């Protein structure tokens, strides 16, 4: 513990310094490799595994059942197709509604018969139909519009606050890095992409920017008037800022990740598949990547964009 505090003191005073800015070629290299993997690997695997909320699917309805518990229906569906995760709802007094991903005609018929047998009813009392996507094209297009407007607004906001547009560009670069890598891991693991997962991704977007703003605020403070300094460079001041906020970055990410880890653990190991696991996975990966990128992507990119400006260059 006291070691950690000493470490904080040393980082603050500059006695210990992690050369983040100087080794930026290394960080860029790592980022490029990760982003390429995150883009290429899913394509090789056949893209994302979208859930029924996005693609629509099949719906079964059983009337006149005595027992409306969800487990009977779930077991019956999985006896035919173990991969399917049905959404089971009881409707009215004695009916059950089961929604699954889109199934072919043969599987649909098999599930229909399996469900009828499970409830001890003639197969005629089970009807099936196709249902459309709740998260349809209209929801997606609205979400994308909203995102674009948000990114523009935030860029302008940051440019005003920090008095330079280059910080906005660096923050957006880090953001793109985070989202691509998180989405890539989703595709790689083959986890179903549900609305909860997309919302997790949106949270990452907010978190990544938030974290970058905190680091950049210290960078802004340290680089004020650096052009008048005789013996420091722009890059070294940015590096000092990153080191000075490192303890805060570590503390924040640990504190933010602990609850998410708790959700992920409970969601994945106690409950099995569900909304909690979907959202927690996206968050767990995204928060780690988001904290990493504020330090190792956003700050070096910012230095890269600015250090060649004449006023920082002249007095080298």
């Amino acid at each position: 513990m006291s070691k950690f505090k000493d470490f904080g003191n040393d980082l603050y005073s500059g006695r210990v310094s992690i050369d983040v800015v100087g080794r930026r070629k290394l960080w860029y290299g790592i980022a490029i490799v990760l982003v390429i993997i995150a883009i290429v690997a899913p394509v090789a695997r056949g893209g994302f595994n979208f859930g029924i909320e996005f693609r629509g699917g099949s719906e079964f309805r059983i009337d006149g059942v005595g027992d409306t518990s969800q487990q009977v229906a779930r077991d019956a569906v999985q006896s035919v197709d173990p991969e399917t995760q049905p959404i089971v709802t009881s409707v009215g007094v004695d009916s059950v509604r089961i929604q699954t991903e889109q199934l072919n005609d043969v599987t649909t018929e098999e599930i229909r018969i399996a469900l009828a047998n499970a409830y001890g009813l003639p197969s005629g009392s089970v009807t099936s139909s196709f249902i459309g996507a709740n998260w349809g094209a209209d929801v997606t297009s609205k979400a994308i519009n909203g995102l674009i407007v948000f990114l523009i607004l935030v860029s302008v906001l940051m440019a005003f606050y920090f008095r330079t547009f280059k910080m906005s560009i660096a923050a957006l670069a880090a953001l793109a890095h985070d989202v691509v890598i998180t989405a890539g891991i989703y595709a790689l693991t083959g986890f179903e992409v549900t609305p909860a997962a997309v919302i997790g991704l949106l949270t990452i977007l907010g978190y990544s920017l938030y974290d970058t703003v905190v680091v950049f605020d210290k960078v802004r403070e340290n680089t004020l008037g650096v052009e008048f300094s005789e013996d420091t460079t722009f890059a070294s001041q940015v590096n000092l800022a990153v080191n000075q906020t490192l303890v805060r970055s570590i503390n924040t990410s640990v504190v933010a990740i602990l609850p998410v880890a708790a959700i992920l653990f409970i969601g994945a190991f106690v409950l099995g598949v569900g909304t909690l696991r979907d959202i927690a996975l996206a968050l767990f990966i995204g928060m780690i990547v988001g904290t990493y990128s504020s330090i190792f992507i956003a700050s070096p990119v910012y230095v890269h964009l600015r250090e060649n400006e004449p006023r920082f260059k002249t007095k080298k």
Partner: protein
Amino acid sequence: MAASSTVKSARKSLIWLLVIIFGLAGLIGFGSTTDENASFTPKLALDLQGGTQIILSPLLLDGQAVTTEQLDQAVSIIRQRVDASGVSESQVITQGDTNIIVSIPGIPDENTLALIKASAKLEFRPVLITSAGTPSAEVDGAGTSDPDATESPAPEETPAAEEPTASPTDGSDLNWITPEIQKEFDDLDCASVFREPGQIDDPAVPLVTCDVNGFSKFILGPVEVDGANISDASNGTVTSSTGASTNTWAVNLEFDEVGTEGFSTVTQRLFPLEQPRNQFAITLDGFVITAPTTQAVITNGSAQITGSFDRDSSKVLADQLKYGSLPIGFEVQSQENISATLGQDQLTSGLLAGLIGLILVVIYSAFQYRGLAIVTVGSLLVAAVLVYLLIAFLSWRQGYRLSMAGVAGLIVAIGITVDSFIVYFERVRDEIREGRNLEVAVENAWKRSIRTILASDAVSFTAAATLFLLTVGNVRGFAFTLGLTTIVDLIVVFLFTHPLLRLLARTKFFSSGNPWSGFDSKALKASGYVGRGQFRVAPTLSQGKALKVSKEAATRQTIAERKAQAALEEADKSGGN
């Protein structure tokens, strides 16, 4: 005295916090005695609580078929209308080739059903002839109750039908009335069903119809302005000419360019005409909702519809008009209760996960910040109480429903809320490292960290507000939760964390730099700073490193400080000589 004013302002902030908490609790408590929707238990969304499934099937005339595009368009419009009535994360999907399934939490009332299924085609047509709602031959006064006194003037006696002498020149021309139309009008009985549900009228010809209450019947000219030209709609109470608010509810309309132009032209024409031809009928799905007299030429593109509205029905109509009319009409095929898709066990586990997460955070912050963990835990508890009360309040006033994704969002918010304290605490530590005493350090750190906290929360809030305004469905629910927790974060930092830290900084335990206080001044000062601009070089440091460190310190001075330092050194030199 400065010190006591610090205490005063800290106490004032804490009192404000209590006012907010008790104010919210009081509002909800008071509300629960008068309004059944108000409760201290937040309402749950479809996935956790279940609700009602409404299957809509299209109303089709003979030989008419519904296309996929029409169905998708209808789904999109219905979703926006449902969303406008609250942040409930409802489900709107197509079933098969023709039906739409709308699943909403709770049990829908008449207004909600109307909001979902009405096609809401609004048209503006000039009135040609109007009379009481029963056939003019009938003398029986049973159906002819008082016409809506505030809206339509007393119905006039029907003029005798004549063969039109010429073809009509404009929408108000009585030449539109052919003997067939006159006969249709004479035979019309508003008490009977006279329109096919989902019937679509030709906008270019006159329309014979009744008002929604069946009090009067009308012959209306062709459509002058179409509801599609409405750019925005809202509801509110009518303001009287003296500026006082009345109890009459109205729907306010804003027209787009085409609508403004059309509205201006037609009011210009109607204004000088005689009763009833100076009346302007507004029809909704073929029925006249109101037919006001033109009292002025309206050129600014805004209009107000009054009628027999109350708060809820005016909101329904405004929402319908805002998101456009459905391409086809729908009827409710079935309406049934549905159970939750996620069991109670999911919610319990989610809350358990949140609790575990919270305990882990507390342990970590105790490990990192020792005595300061009291501030962290206290702030988190205050934040939790505020979020809970706000959710209960908003599920009453705004129709907010807590879904599983919402619960996850709130758990994640723990981390983002604690970050504000971490930024603040680390700043305080930085100030102590520079040799300040705790009270000064807290004040300086606050000034610096609040900038960072405000800037980063502004980013979060921009995200929340933009996504809330521009998106639909689940994304909107997420944005709502994000915005809520961001605001709570700010309230807690301003009104709890900062005042508490100011007060604690005055206690002996913290100000003496006790090793358990989290502000162990000895540990923090070990860095080598003794004060701004001065430097105590650690004996263990190599010469080069010491030089580097002192240079770093020099750059942290402001220009003024640097000049002052140079002047001092200069004075020292000359003094020494």
